[in-house]
């Protein structure tokens, strides 16, 4: 089971007709079950596009994608994906509990089963007392936890996260990193995590996929051999810094044509 690929990407190319941009070129990537893989790179390297291609929200121009042995569109129809975006994308007219229950409603779960699962998810993201609050009554970090709970509520085999903590302050971000890891260890889901923070990628992942821009390619893959469970101390371990340096150098070597502000974003 652990060796079966969850996602198999073969020679995927995506060009956008507007401006003739090649967002992705000849991407080959395989994810196995239970992995937490980060996609990292400067803006414009196609990491979000790759995430959307995997999630069947964008169609590739060439190449093939299989998810759990099916086409990506079949996987989407089967509810194999949970998605978390940079902004929480909660629905203001729904309470926290109802936001989490949304995918369950779509899957036709009955009320009691929904209620039980929502209670479970609220515990998982430590928002027990906020079931009947509305999203705008919560802080940014809490809203993002609701989005994560919603994405996990139907136990998707694949969790796609597009810079989920990018808009949060550093403290909240590090706390949510730890929370994500503990959830991941509990649920055993496979996670694709897009970020442009090197330390976040190294801290979370089993593997870091480094991408370079124009056209978007995979510059290299770094295996992160830091032991789990990872803790606050992991960030201070010498091995952590070695891996951060390795990722950074990979980014630099392929990023001669980075704009200054992109370089800055990668610090």
């Amino acid at each position, binding site marked *: 089971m652990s060796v079966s690929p969850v996602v198999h990407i073969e020679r995927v190319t995506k060009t956008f007709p507007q401006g003739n941009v090649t967002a992705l070129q000849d991407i080959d990537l395989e994810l196995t079950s239970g992995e937490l893989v980060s996609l990292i790179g400067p803006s414009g390297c196609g990491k979000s596009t790759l995430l959307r291609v995997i999630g069947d*929200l964008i169609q590739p121009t060439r190449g093939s994608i299989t998810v759990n042995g099916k086409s990506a569109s079949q996987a989407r129809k089967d509810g194999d994906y949970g998605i978390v*975006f940079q*902004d929480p*994308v909660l629905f203001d007219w729904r309470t926290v509990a109802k936001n989490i229950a949304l995918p369950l409603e779509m899957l036709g779960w009955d009320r009691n089963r929904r209620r039980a699962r929502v209670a479970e998810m609220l515990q998982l993201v430590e928002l027990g007392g906020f079931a009947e609050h509305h999203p*705008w009554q919560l802080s940014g970090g809490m809203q993002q936890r609701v989005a994560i709970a919603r994405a996990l509520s139907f136990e998707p085999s694949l969790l796609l996260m597009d810079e989920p903590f990018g808009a949060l302050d550093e403290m909240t971000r590090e706390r949510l990193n730890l929370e994500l890891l503990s959830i991941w260890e509990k649920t055993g889901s496979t996670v694709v995590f897009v970020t442009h923070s090197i330390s976040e990628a190294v801290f979370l992942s089993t593997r870091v996929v480094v991408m370079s821009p124009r056209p978007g390619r995979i510059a290299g893959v770094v295996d992160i051999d830091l032991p789990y469970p990872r803790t606050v101390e992991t960030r201070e371990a010498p091995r952590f810094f070695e891996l951060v340096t390795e990722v950074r150098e990979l980014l630099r070597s392929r990023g001669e044509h980075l704009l200054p502000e992109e370089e800055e974003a990668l610090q």
Partner: protein
Amino acid sequence: MTSRAARQAVEWLPALIVFVVVIGLWEGLVRALHVQQFLLPKPSTILSVFWTQRHTLWPAGWYTFKEALGGFAVGSGLGILAATVVARFKTAGTALMPIFIAANAVPIIAFAPIFGAWFNPISPHSKMAVAGVLCFLPVMVNTLRGLNSAKPRQIELMRSYAASELEIWRRVRVPSALPFLFTSLKVASVLAMIGAIVGEYFGGALNALGVLINTDAQIFQFQTAWAGILVASLLGIALYCAVGASERVVLRWSPQARDS
């Protein structure tokens, strides 16, 4: 609860004071300066006519109110329908939107005599038509904006759940449109009352409020005309408040609804 009521009372106090002062000044100045009755009657005179003529004024008001209500319902309903069609079918949008926007600049009230000719000028339908046409555009334009206000990410999220187009409408587009819709319905409620009354200025049943105001003004019964305007205002405010109240019920979840 009591503290909330008290807070609301405090919030309303300044407006109430201004209102009382203005009425007081009006009364005082008209008396002091001996303003002619036909130029500006005293508030006390208007109020006394408002009371003595209540058996004429209120049935007339109710008659006109029903016209406004009919026009409001039909015009707003068609506005919502048109917005739905335009939001759903892009080609319909490209064909219709320029026309709607051009129509928006037309002083629609100018059509009032024409509607009188199209429908029976005595019948309430010509007034409903004026009120309805006035309501249509604001409701249509705002509802359309609302239906298109759903964020691309929200749609993407629904797609990731394999949601059908219909489900995306039901669960995302329609709820996002509701705050916009209610804003326009409040505007439309005011326009409907204006449309009905102005429509009646061009002819209508004898027991209609607009006809009554118009006739009384022509025969120098200005205090009665003013009392009629008072009835029209009260009914207009009532309709506006009714829409506002249903907004607060439907949009309980909205932070804006709580503030307003």
